[in-house]
C-alpha cells in the first residue's frame, strides 16, 4: 500500500517538475534547458525574501513565482529570440543561461544544507495505514489543480486557444493573426512560472541545494522524452511510469538508483519507440 501511495505522490512530483518544460516545448518548440536553474533559483529567492527581507511566506512565494515567470520571459526576449529556429543554438543558449544561474548561485553562497523552506502545514494524516504528511497532500492537490487549470486555460480562453493553434501549426496560426513571438514569450513565462510553483511546493520536502537544479532538468527531459516530446498526456503517463519505477527500485534495491532509472528509461524509449509513448500522431504525420 505504501508503494501505491508514495508511487502516486512521486509521480505527481515528477509531473509537476516537468510540466513547465513540456509546455514550453509543445507550444514554441523551444527546449528550455534553463528549466532546472529557474526551479532552484525560485527556491533560493523565496528563501532570501523570507530570511533576509523577512516578508511573510505567502508574499515571498508569490513574488518568487512571478519573478521566475518574468525571468523566463526575459530569457526569451533577449537571448532565445536571436537563435530561434537553430535547434542546437537554442539548446546551447538556454543551457548556458541555466548553467550561469546555477553556478552563480553556488558562487553566491548557496552551499551546504542550511537552506530550507518551511512546509506549509506540519502534521500528517493516516490513510489506509500509510502516514502522509500534509505537505505531500498539498502537492497532490496542487498537481491536480494545475492540470485541471491548464486544461481549462487551453480550451476556453483566447490565449490558451492561440497556444493550441501555434503548437499545431505555427504558420497557419500566423495567418489568423496570432503573433508567434508573443506566444513564445508567454509560454516561457508560464513554463517558468510552473517551474517556480513546483519549486515552492516541492522544496519544503528537503534542502535547497544547487544540484537539485540539474536533477530537475534531467527528470524533466526524461519525462518529456518518454511521454513523447510536447505531449501533455504523455507527461502524466511517463511521470507515473518513472515515478513508480523509482519507488520500486527504492524499495527493492536502493535509493541511489533513482537517477539510473530515469536515464535507463530514456535509453529504452529511444531504442523501442523514439517518438515516445504519446508521440504517435506526430510520428504518423511524419511518415505521410
Amino acid at each position: 500500500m505504501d508503494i501505491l501511495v508514495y508511487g502516486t505522490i512521486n509521480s505527481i512530483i515528477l509531473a509537476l517538475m516537468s510540466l513547465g518544460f513540456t509546455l514550453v516545448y509543445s507550444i514554441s518548440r523551444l527546449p528550455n534547458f534553463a528549466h532546472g536553474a529557474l526551479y532552484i533559483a525560485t527556491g533560493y529567492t523565496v528563501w532570501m525574501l523570507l530570511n533576509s527581507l523577512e516578508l511573510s511566506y505567502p508574499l515571498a512565494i508569490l513574488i518568487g513565482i512571478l519573478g521566475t515567470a518574468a525571468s523566463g520571459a526575459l530569457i526569451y526576449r533577449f537571448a532565445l529570440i536571436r537563435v530561434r529556429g537553430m535547434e542546437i543554438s537554442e539548446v546551447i543558449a538556454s543551457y548556458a543561461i541555466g548553467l550561469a544561474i546555477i553556478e552563480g548561485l553556488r558562487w553566491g553562497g548557496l552551499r551546504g544544507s542550511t537552506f530550507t523552506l518551511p512546509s506549509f502545514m506540519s502534521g500528517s494524516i493516516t490513510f489506509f495505514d500509510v502516514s502522509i504528511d500534509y505537505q505531500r497532500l498539498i502537492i497532490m492537490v496542487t498537481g491536480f489543480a494545475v492540470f485541471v487549470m491548464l486544461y481549462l486555460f487551453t480550451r476556453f480562453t483566447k490565449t490558451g486557444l492561440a497556444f493550441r493553434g501555434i503548437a499545431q501549426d505555427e504558420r497557419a496560426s500566423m495567418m489568423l493573426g496570432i503573433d508567434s513571438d508573443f506566444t513564445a514569450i508567454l509560454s516561457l513565462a508560464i513554463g517558468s512560472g510552473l517551474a517556480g510553483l513546483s519549486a515552492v511546493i516541492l522544496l519544503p520536502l528537503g534542502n535547497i541545494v544547487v544540484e537539485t537544479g540539474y536533477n530537475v532538468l534531467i527528470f524533466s527531459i526524461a519525462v518529456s522524452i518518454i511521454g513523447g516530446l510536447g505531449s501533455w498526456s504523455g507527461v502524466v503517463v511517463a511521470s507515473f511510469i518513472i515515478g513508480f519505477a523509482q519507488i520500486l527500485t527504492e524499495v527493492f534495491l536502493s535509493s541511489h538508483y533513482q537517477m539510473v532509472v530515469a536515464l535507463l528509461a530514456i535509453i529504452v524509449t529511444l531504442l523501442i519507440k523514439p517518438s515516445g509513448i504519446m508521440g504517435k500522431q506526430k510520428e504518423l504525420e511524419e511518415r505521410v
Partner: protein
Amino acid sequence: MLKASDLMVFYENMLALNNVTIDIKSNSITGIFGSNSAGKSTLMHMISGIILDMQKKEEMKGGERISSYGTIDFEHQEISKLKPHERARMGIILCPERRRIFAESSVMENLKIGAFLSTSAETKENLDYVLHIFPHLTKHLHRQGGFLSGGEQQMLAIGRAIMAKPKLLLLDEPLLGLSPLYQKIVVTAIKEIRNSKKIAIIITEQYARPIIPIIEYGYIIENGSSVLEGTGNELLDNPDVKSAYFGV
C-alpha cells in the same frame, strides 16, 4: 483597396515572381490563374507576409536565400515590411493551400482559434454565419479536424478564415483535390461570402473553369510573370487562355 506593385521574389537565384502588379478593388472577387509553380502561392505569401517568416526561418536554418522586392499598398498604407500577424490584424487573412487545419483540435476549436482577433460578440455572429453557409460542418462540430474529408476540411479552412473577420480574404487553391460536388458548394459559398460580408476575395486556381463565373477580374500568371489580365469574359474570349486553362 490593395495594390501590389512590381513584386519580385527570388528563391536563391530562381525567379519565382517577376514584376507582378495586381490591383484589387474592394467588394470584388479576383481570380489568379496559372499552372503548377507559376508563382501563385508565392504571390499569396507576398500579400499575406508569410514570405517574411519563410525568409527568417530559412536564414536561421542556413537554408535557401529568399529575397523579395516590391511595394504593397493596402488601404493607403505601405505594408510590405509588416509581419504576417500584423497584416492579419489589418484584415488580410490567408486561407492556405492544402488547408492546414489544426488536426488535433475539434472543428469547433478550429473555428475558435480562428476567432483570435474577434470580440466574443463577433465570434458568435461569425460562428452562426459559417455554420449557415456550410451546414455540413454543423454535424461534425466535435469531430477532430484531421478526421474530416478533404472537402469538409476546405469548408472548415474557409470558415476559420472568416472567423478572423477578413477585409481581404486570400484563398490559395481552395478547390484543390475536391470532388465536383464539393467544388460547387465551395464556389457558391465564396460568392455568398462576398455578397453578404462585402469583402474583397482573391482566389488562385490552376483550372479556371469553375471559378470564372464568379470573378470580376482575373490575372493569368506564367513562370512568375503576369501575362494577361481582364474581366472574366475577356479572359474567356482569349483563344490562348481557352486552350490552356479551360481545356477547350
